[in-house]
């Protein structure tokens, strides 16, 4: 069951049943107080630094806590104003409950910086007009990023309207609850969003070390010709079903667009293997996707990429794989025990989710009568807490690991190489994305290509 969650940092200000004007007034007072305190005996207040506004849209208490934690982590490196919006939250009183917390950084050789984290719990129609809600709060002159945690409603107008005030949308396609459908919605967004909007995907950021390692193999001049000799690609991933092939499709889409491969066909083979055939310059490239059970990986994660071919009479083989020693550290998702899925593929997950939503709706319809029966309170005297749907957490939190690379060129002995993967925690990935902006043509091309491939799945 969900509860009213107070942000896990001590707020400087809190208001029930408030308006955005109240929040703005409180912000002004907090800033003035900070400026005066920090200026001390100095004649002028110290400069205020802010490089972006980050809006996090969340739908659950756990996501809200993650968004606040991430905002704090980001403000430790990039002074930012963060706004965390929880829709349909249990709100005391009216439609808007707000908290303002601050995070003060005191670098050794510079003056202190204060970053605000504004948490808004919204209910009712206001939640459907995010742009109107947050526009007055945005910091002028710096980019605004909308980080939609969970599954963005690409089919709703609200999202497109909210994107009008944003420079970038950040999602995590590894967290989509209906990956197959939502991923196609993400790809379609490229065609309908305003031209200034950048699109960033935490799953794409997780693939960066894979892309670097693969690119690195082909960087030496004497290996550049191998790019035109690639004949086979194998991509192993964890989990069953087409919804778990998103990362595999993205890495393939990246190679295909970078190297000018055209998708000809894709077909399922025996043993759950899917094979896609590309063509480039009269050559055929076969890409095989294989679900390989790896206990240490989360559903949808890549476990290995193999590339093989020959050029100018020399054969080559590159194999990149996750360190198999990594251990699982998070428990099984809890909803499975409540709603049997019948399988972990997309259809099974969708079925489970529908059941869960139905379960919630039934509960919700009868919530008041159940509550009054249970408490004996008169109607309106107290409010029942909203129920929660347990959701399938597609990504696990364990992260730090290495990529093992094996290189074979010609008849030479294989060369082994170990490279570190940075922490794949959300704050690190988000920081990496936002520090370079969200406009990434390579991602856009790879996304479109991956979506084309996913369609064939």
């Amino acid at each position, binding site marked *: 069951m969900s509860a009213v969650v107070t942000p896990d940092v001590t707020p400087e200000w809190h208001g029930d049943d408030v308006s955005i004007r109240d929040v703005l007034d409180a912000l002004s007072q907090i800033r003035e107080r900070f400026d005066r305190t920090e200026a001390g005996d100095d004649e002028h207040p110290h*400069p205020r630094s802010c490089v972006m506004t980050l809006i996090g849209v969340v739908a659950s208490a756990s996501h809200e806590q993650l968004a606040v934690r991430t905002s704090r982590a980001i403000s430790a490196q*990039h002074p930012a104003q963060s706004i965390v919006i929880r829709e349909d939250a249990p709100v005391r009183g009216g439609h808007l409950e707000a908290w303002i917390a601050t995070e003060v950084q005191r*670098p050794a050789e*510079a003056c202190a910086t204060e970053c605000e984290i504004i948490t808004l719990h919204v209910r009712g129609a206001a939640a459907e007009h995010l742009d109107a809600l947050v526009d007055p709060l945005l910091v002028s002159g710096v980019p605004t990023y909308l980080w939609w945690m969970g599954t963005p409603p690409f089919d709703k107008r609200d999202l497109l309207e909210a994107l009008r005030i944003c420079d970038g949308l950040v999602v995590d396609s590894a967290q989509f609850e209906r990956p197959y459908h939502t991923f196609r919605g993400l790809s379609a967004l490229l065609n309908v969003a305003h031209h200034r909007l950048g699109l960033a995907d935490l799953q794409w950021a997780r693939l960066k*070390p894979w892309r670097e390692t693969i*690119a690195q193999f*082909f960087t030496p001049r004497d290996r550049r010709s191998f790019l035109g000799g690639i004949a086979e690609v194998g991509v192993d991933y964890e989990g069953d079903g087409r919804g778990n092939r998103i990362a595999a499709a993205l890495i393939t889409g990246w190679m295909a667009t970078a190297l000018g491969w055209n998708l000809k066909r894709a077909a399922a083979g025996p043993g759950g293997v899917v094979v896609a055939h590309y063509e480039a310059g009269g050559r055929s490239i076969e890409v095989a996707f294989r679900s390989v059970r790896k206990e240490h990986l989360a559903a949808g994660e890549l476990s290995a990429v193999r590339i093989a071919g020959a050029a100018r009479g020399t054969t080559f083989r590159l194999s990149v794989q996750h360190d198999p020693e990594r251990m699982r550290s998070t428990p099984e998702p809890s909803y499975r025990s409540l709603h049997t899925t019948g399988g972990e593929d997309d259809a099974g997950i969708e079925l489970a989710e529908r059941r869960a939503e139905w379960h919630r709706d039934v509960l919700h319809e009868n919530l008041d009568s159940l509550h009054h029966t249970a408490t004996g309170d008169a109607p309106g005297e107290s409010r029942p807490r909203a129920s929660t749907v347990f959701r399938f957490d597609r990504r696990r939190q364990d992260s730090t690991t290495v990529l093992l690379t094996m290189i074979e060129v010609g008849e030479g002995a294989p*060369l082994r190489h170990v*490279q570190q993967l940075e922490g794949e925690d959300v704050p690190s990935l988000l920081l990496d994305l936002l520090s370079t902006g969200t406009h990434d043509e390579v991602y856009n091309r790879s996304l479109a290509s991956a979506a084309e491939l996913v369609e064939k799945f």
Partner: protein
Amino acid sequence: MRVEEAPNPLAEGLHDYRVADPAVMVIFGATGDLSGRKLLPALYNLAKQRSLPAGFAVVGAAKDELTEQAFRKHASDKIRQFSRTQPIDDRVLAAFLDSVSYIKVDFSRLEDFKALGARLQELDNTRLIPGNRIFYCATPPPTYELISVQIQAAGLSTSTGFRRIVIEKPFGLDLKSARGLTETLHKVFSEDSVYRIDHYLGKETVQNILAFRFANAIFEPVWNTNLIDSVQITVAEDIGIETRGAYYDRTGALRDIVQNHALQLVTLVAMEPPLAFEATAVRDEKVKVLRAIRPLIGEDIEQSTVRGQYTQGWVLGEQVPGYREEPNVATDSQTETFAALRLFIDNWRWAGVPFYIRAGKRLPKRITEIRIQFKRPPHLTFGREAMKEVDPNALTLRIQPEEGISLKFGAKVPSAGLRIRSVTMDFQYMTSFLVEAPEAYERLLLDCVIGDPTLFTRADEVEAAWMFIDPIEESWRNGRPPLGVYPAGTWGPPAAAQLLQGDGREWHRP
């Protein structure tokens, strides 16, 4: 374009991703201080950032009798002690140490270099390295010549891949010795294979001078003699000479700091926009500035330069000895620990704008900054009385510490009347990018492995700088101008202030 020369299409969009061909880096003097404090930790951090390609190898070479295992232990200890990033990632360190080996090399023994050659050949075969070599001289400058001669004699300069040599400053002690060094190196390595490291150029904030000037449209139009009154460059250290007495007493502030760091800052402030941030374009423009500096000759030197030596005093609340009381310094030393000079750049942009440089040890604080002083408004619209507390506009580029930029301008004092006062608008790196910058050596080592010499000093740059410095040095050795003294913890001898006072200006107090 041939496929080998085309950019790697898979590398597109990988921000900050720069990776080289597999190569072997041979570190001569691998057991020394520079290697342990800077090079090995920088290489570890590059490995951690996945910037070193599969197959990259490091060979430590020094005269010490060490086993491979002992050298790896030494490298591991130094990395753990001096790495910028902590805690150390054991798996990355282990993988990095796998690529590290050691060989005893006595620089005078050709056989040792031949044994080194055999080791390099073996690494080429086992680690898929196409003969690429980087020879890093982490050794005293007098060894550079011997090392390069032995490299050639042992046939190490004729492998199939690229061959580069890296040397540390000082690049000679005067023009003659700098040219001699260049000639020696050029017998074995072409100029584009010689990487002269001045770690100052690897600092992020130094590079940012170019970003500030050429990534913004609003500064260049005012960046000239029409609006700029003068430029002040301060490179101040609060420390003394520490354990470097013997070296410093032979060198002095002019050759230790002004000839390289300070003149590099002059070039970055004064250069014309290069066509691209690319080695030849950037270095060509820097050389043009150095060649345009009006030479100081004869009486100019006495009028435009100041030299000083610190005496006992107080720095940062502590009493410190005078220079002549420092270890390994002659008791009658005439070596300057403070240098100030006024120079002019004779070109269209800077005609008539004095550049004031001061550099020294045991000054009140550690600070490096460039101050661009603008001219006063041509007309006092608000009257002399209202403007009496207003200084001219000034733009200060702070290199270290508190890296940032501040602009001083006039603003109305809130009151019924009209009074104007100077206020500053500050930008601080540390409040905008709270990210730890990479070590200068990480940037420079990677540049060297990749083959990007933009931030390294070219031979003609070195020579142009010595051409300006040599006459001053010679005059100073002849006692002109006389050596002034200053108590430690002050801003140099009185003559330094007088140098500007004579021009109707004064040093900015940082």
